[in-house]
């Protein structure tokens, strides 16, 4: 079963028999259903439970996509990645998702769609009639796509709520007696039957006992109120419950709760400390306390996450702090440092773990970029490593549309940057354009990168820019320009004695000979030269590329035996890398 990161699966599940039947039918026969209800009512938990019970008998591919921390522009990219595919140039991401989903019996869960209703609705509309796919969306409001089927998820009634309270009490090692049950029912009623609020109350049972707990909650009256026209009173209820849960705690847990709302995914004590320069030990203790009180969810022994309804309340608390601007800036600095550290690990022989970590940080990194773009003059330099590191996800991980969108927005502001940062960003933009086979964009970006690197006297940057321009020129049919660019790149790499760079540029020279001049003999000699250099110190991927290109040239020289040998060598190196 998929990893339900934004669901607190530790919380017991009770009732919801009719809703489960609806979901089982959906899973059996396919289609789409939107679970609509207020934040904290238990929509995500219901979806999780239904899938867990259904899967006991039938193996289904479950794809869970939490959408709470991501913007509209990132929705399709996130879903494409979740189904294990990559975006492709010229192909609508909806088609990619449809294709991937159609080939397997899947259950797709889109969690917390309320802030991206148009994107979620468009996706569901295009998928809802595809055979064998079941889609569950959770949202605080309808998504309003044609033929939407909605299942309203209301709060617990008094009986079910009391049962939930009793089960939750057991997890806190508290057994309720028969006399306690009417009190439990009154607590549930006072909390509007909202699952997350009942969970918060039950988290304090061990220390207060059921009677004292009821008395404490009594002091919250008038509890259920409506402050502004049209607002959901349950939001106020939840806010009050959170205030009540936090009130007995020291200042540090209260601060940590507010700061935690900055993070879209999992976080640890170091992350929190980075936002207010607090003490690590007290922060770690505060995190434990908050998790014990159901205000945070434990992801593992050191990391935590926050449920969406909690985050909304915590974010309001953070927004009310006088130091919120400083916190935002520290957040950007911290994410930039963290992302850069992860990115450096991508260059090691085993980059898989680093890539997963980078993906874990992706939503936070995008939040930092968005923050920087609001005041680019001062803020872009803070997040420059994020912008250049995320290229690994955008170009390498196949999230091309998002990458192009971010790079376009960043490059619009890039002229305000110091030359060194401008040049780095231009190179990153060229890599994204290359992944998107947007060679004209590469050609447009190239001169700006070259002038910036020239001013800086950065010969490595220059060599890379010329090498990239050579590739773009070749693919738009400007073979002579490609040859000039790549010769410059080779010369620059040689001047700074950069063997991997020399190898890479020689491979490009070979490609220009083979594909631009239809000269397999010239190409073969370039590839052999590159191979010789790369075999001494190059990474396995580059050596694999050299063998692979050699196989191509040898094939065109009508030497199939040698071509197969080279191809097998290439495969061996690709496997090693």
């Amino acid at each position: 079963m998929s990893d339900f990161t934004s669901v607190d699966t530790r919380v017991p599940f009770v009732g919801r028999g009719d809703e489960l039947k609806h979901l089982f039918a959906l899973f059996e026969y396919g289609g789409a259903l939107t679970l609509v209800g207020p934040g904290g009512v238990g929509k995500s938990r219901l979806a999780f439970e239904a899938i867990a019970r259904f899967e006991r008998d039938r193996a289904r591919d479950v794809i869970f996509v939490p959408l709470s921390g991501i913007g509209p522009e990132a929705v399709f990219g996130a879903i494409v990645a979740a189904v294990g595919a990559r975006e492709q140039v010229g192909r609508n991401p909806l088609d990619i998702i449809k294709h991937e989903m159609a080939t397997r019996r899947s259950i797709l869960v889109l969690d917390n769609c309320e802030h991206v209703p148009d994107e979620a609705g468009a996706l569901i509309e295009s998928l809802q009639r595809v055979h064998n796919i079941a889609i569950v969306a959770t949202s605080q409001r309808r998504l309003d796509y044609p033929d939407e089927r909605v299942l309203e998820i209301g709060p617990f009634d008094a009986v079910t709520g009391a049962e939930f309270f009793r089960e939750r009490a057991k997890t806190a090692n508290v057994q309720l007696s028969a006399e306690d049950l009417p009190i439990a029912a009154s607590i549930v009623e006072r909390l509007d039957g909202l699952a997350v609020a009942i969970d918060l109350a039950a988290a304090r049972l061990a220390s207060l006992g059921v009677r004292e707990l009821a008395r404490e909650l009594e002091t919250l009256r008038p509890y259920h109120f409506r402050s502004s026209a049209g607002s959901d009173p349950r939001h106020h209820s939840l806010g009050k419950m959170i205030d009540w849960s936090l009130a007995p705690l020291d200042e540090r847990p209260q601060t940590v709760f507010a700061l935690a709302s900055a993070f879209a995914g999992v976080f640890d004590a170091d992350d929190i400390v980075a936002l207010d320069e607090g003490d690590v030990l007290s922060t770690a203790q505060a995190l434990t306390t908050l998790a014990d009180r159901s205000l945070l969810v434990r992801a593992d022994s050191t990391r935590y996450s926050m449920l969406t309804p909690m985050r909304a309340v915590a974010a309001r608390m953070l927004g009310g702090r006088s130091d919120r601007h400083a916190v935002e800036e520290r957040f950007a600095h911290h994410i930039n440092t963290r992302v850069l550290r992860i990115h450096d690990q991508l260059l090691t022989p085993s980059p898989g773990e680093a890539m997963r970590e980078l993906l874990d940080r992706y939503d936070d990194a995008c939040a930092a970029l968005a923050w920087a773009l609001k005041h680019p003059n001062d803020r872009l330099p803070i997040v420059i490593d994020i912008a250049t590191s995320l290229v690994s996800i955008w170009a390498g991980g196949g999230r091309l549309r998002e990458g192009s969108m971010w790079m376009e927005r960043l490059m619009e502001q890039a002229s305000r940057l110091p030359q060194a940062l401008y040049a780095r960003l231009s190179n990153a933009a060229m890599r994204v354009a290359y992944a998107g086979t947007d060679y004209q964009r590469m050609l447009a970006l190239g001169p700006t990168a070259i002038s910036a690197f020239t001013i800086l006297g950065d010969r490595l940057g220059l060599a890379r820019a010329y090498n990239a321009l050579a590739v773009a020129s070749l693919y738009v049919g400007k073979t002579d320009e490609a040859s000039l660019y790549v010769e410059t790149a080779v010369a620059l790499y040689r001047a700074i004695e950069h063997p991997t760079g020399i190898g890479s540029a020689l491979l490009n020279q070979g490609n220009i000979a083979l594909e631009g001049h239809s000269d397999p003999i010239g190409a073969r000699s370039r590839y052999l030269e590159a191979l010789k250099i790369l075999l001494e110190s190059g990474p396995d991927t580059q050596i694999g590329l050299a063998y692979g290109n050699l196989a191509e040239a040898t094939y065109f020289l009508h030497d199939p035996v040698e071509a197969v040998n080279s191809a097998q060598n290439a495969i061996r190196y690709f496997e090693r890398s």
Partner: protein
Amino acid sequence: MAWQHEVIGRSNLIKGDLQGAAQSLRTAITLLDGAPQPIYLAQAVESAVRLLLLQREFERAAPLSFAARRLRRDQRIPAIGLTRTEIRADEERLAAALGPDAMHAAAAQAQALDLGQLGRLAAAELS
């Protein structure tokens, strides 16, 4: 790796080992199914077309040939140099063998294809 299995497939075609070629091309297409890289998919389909031509299976080859061309156009991956020469030679051979009406029908068939299914279609033709 898919790229290199495709090169092995093409090389086997030169050697006249059609069975070995089909096997390598199927491997390439299977690898591409998990991580689609359009340029290598286009090349694998073009090599499958060449294999079908060698087997004189012109009607089966033609829709794949048009679909590969469509894939290259949609994904902005032009065939250049010697690759283009080989593809053109295959297309001319197909046109000569089938005539304009059958070629139009094959083009229409390719136009209606979901390119996301192209790898699977090509693999089916190779089995």
